[in-house]
């Protein structure tokens, strides 16, 4: 792929993703039938479940980037790690907001300290701390290594979130997959899942470019005038 077409791939993914999310949401809101027990409220599933899947995917990608950086030391993996972590935090926070809006009419409360919700809150805090603390790291090499190690440790919570509804007696329902929901609900779920997938991959690619530009600035040698001013004159001490 030529550099020029690669330049346009990320914005194209964002546009296609946004179009798919609009189409899937319209299908879920206006065409899909209401669920037998939850009625209209169940339509929240078409955005909540794809967000959950994609938050998990974005964090798995961040985990892969962290391992790749630790193994190769290639900076492109650190840039992608920073981008994927930020995306994972955004999707996890969005997931919690959608979940709270769904919980109120179905459970009667906005939030409950049930295993699925608690482990998700731990994930938001654990993963969210890494980009926040990266902002304070001034030495790029050290910052990249510790954030990759922190990401590997924080990733341990991702499978715990996924299996929490199986391992413990949870108020939250079991995982929603095409096998566990009616076939009438499949298409809006799938379209939104691929829409959010394209959207976040495009956004992560753009965000990684931003990280690469910032890294280039951080590691660039200072201009000659500034370098001369910073170097003490011979015998100055």
């Amino acid at each position, binding site marked *: 792929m030529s550099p020029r077409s690669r330049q346009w791939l990320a914005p194209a993914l964002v546009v296609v993703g946004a179009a798919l999310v609009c189409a899937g*949401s319209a299908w879920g*809101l206006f065409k899909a039938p209401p669920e037998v*027990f939850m009625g209209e409220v169940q339509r929240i599933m078409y955005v909540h479940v794809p967000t959950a899947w994609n938050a998990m995917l974005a964090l798995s990608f961040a985990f892969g980037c962290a391992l790749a950086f630790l193994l190769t030391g290639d900076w492109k993996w650190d840039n992608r790690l920073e981008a994927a972590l930020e995306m994972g935090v955004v999707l996890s926070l969005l997931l919690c907001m959608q979940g709270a809006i769904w919980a109120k009419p179905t459970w009667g409360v906005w939030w409950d300290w049930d295993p699925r919700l608690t482990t998700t809150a731990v994930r938001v805090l654990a993963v969210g701390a890494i980009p926040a603390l990266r902002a304070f790291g001034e030495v790029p090499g050290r910052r990249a290594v510790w954030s990759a190690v922190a990401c590997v440790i924080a990733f341990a919570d991702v499978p715990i979130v996924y299996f929490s509804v199986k391992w413990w007696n949870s108020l939250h329902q079991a995982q929603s997959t095409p096998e566990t929901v009616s076939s009438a609900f499949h298409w809006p779920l799938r379209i939104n899942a691929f829409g959010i997938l394209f959207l976040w991959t495009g956004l992560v690619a753009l*965000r990684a470019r931003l990280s690469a530009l910032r890294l280039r600035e951080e590691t660039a040698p200072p201009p000659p005038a500034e370098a001369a001013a910073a170097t003490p004159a011979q015998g100055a001490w």
Partner: protein
Amino acid sequence: MSGVIQGGEEFVIAAYAVTAAVLSAYAASIYFRLRAEKRRASREEGR
């Protein structure tokens, strides 16, 4: 009590509105941050 949740359209609208707002705001933040960084980088190269 029928065991079926009645109404709730306002929660559905809220969930979709929050989703659209969060994803759009994040996409806009990346666009503006990237544009500012590209401008800064081209200024640095021009020096």
